């Protein structure tokens, strides 16, 4: 497997120190890293899952609105940040692999390197305690 770009490597290293759940995806949407706080939401350790393609991670949480209606994967903030290369924020509900129902807010932003290189996107999660 080829080496990641330095911006992605440094983003992972930052994420590994953050208390906020953080996801990093590559330009193809593959989930290339999530940190320990995100492991709690996912219910799986990164060392166990490794990378996950978009089609897998976008549905594994069962994202839904407050009425329980499933959200289209393309409507998720991370998908918007990746596809449209703009920041996006969302407020929705998920049921992770630990089967816990959570209300979360997500802020996602594209990772753009020097020379306008598209390196993927990052999403930060907050659990809403309401």
């Amino acid at each position: 497997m080829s080496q990641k770009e330095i911006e992605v490597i440094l983003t992972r290293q930052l994420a590994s120190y953050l208390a906020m759940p953080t996801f990093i995806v590559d330009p193809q949407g593959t989930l290339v890293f999530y940190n320990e706080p995100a492991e709690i939401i996912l219910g799986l350790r990164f060392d166990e899952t490794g990378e996950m393609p978009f089609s897998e991670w976008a549905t594994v949480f069962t994202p839904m609105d407050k009425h329980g209606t499933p959200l289209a994967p393309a409507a998720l903030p991370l998908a918007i940040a990746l596809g449209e290369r703009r920041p996006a924020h969302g407020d929705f509900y998920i049921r992770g692999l630990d089967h816990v129902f959570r209300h979360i807010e997500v802020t996602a932003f594209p990772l753009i390197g020097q020379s306008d290189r598209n390196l993927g996107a990052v999403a930060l999660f907050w659990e809403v305690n309401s």
Partner: protein
Amino acid sequence: MRVTLWGTRGSLGSPGAETARYGGNTSCVEVRGTDDTVLVLDAGTGIRRLGVTLPSSLRRVDVLLTHLHMDHIQGLGFFAPLYDPDVVVHIWGPASTTLNLRSRLMRYLSPPLFPVRLRELPCQLVLHEVPCGELDIGEFHISSMLIGHPGPTVGYRITTARATLAYMPDHEPALGVKQFPLPREWTSGCAVATGADLLIHDAQYSSEEYPSYIGWGHSSLVHALTFARLAEVQQFVPFHHDPAHTDEDLDRLIAEAVAAVPPTFTITPGVEGAIFELGCAEKENGKPLIA
């Protein structure tokens, strides 16, 4: 290819009796091809001596800058080919997110820091920004990639049909890594170094010093050796020595690091004046000819 170390010191030129053996000039390495193609890796103070050894018949020289920190460009204004109108000097180096390479170089090559402006140099100057994918210069195939060091910084991988040199004089692959190293895929610089016949790599600090300088962009000797082992290089040259380290300090620190991380490759301390012949059939292949 023939690789000559003209400057091995990091951060600041450090002449003196206590640094005479390893040398006091800052980063500069000459790479000479069998077709007499000349590459110059970084323009630290060591470049002045290199410049006066080049043949008068030389018509092209390529200076590959890893980054624009002062110890890597301070010798540029003293590089003789820049003042020869018959020579085409290609300078390769990283732009920043807001300034191109020319603007960045002009900050140094202009008053009050230097009396001669970039545009006043008599040579035929051509600037190129890196990383720019892969390129060929003479017999050399060169790739550059951004690596972990403050500000835009690249490492260079230089390959011929018979040998590969990896050059990363300023590099902190252990930054932020809780258990160094991670797999190659997640380690800065591995794309540059993996499988190289010779790796010239930052080894500025001792393990005791490193915690005081985390994030400054440099490696401890132990981290550098660990990186070299991860990259499975054949030969490793600790480089960019701390200006405060004397010859005796470096002998001791390298010996301690080797004891801590038993190498699976040859280690040759980065001594100014050392020459390495790579990709040759002779018995001396890969060994320093002068030390």
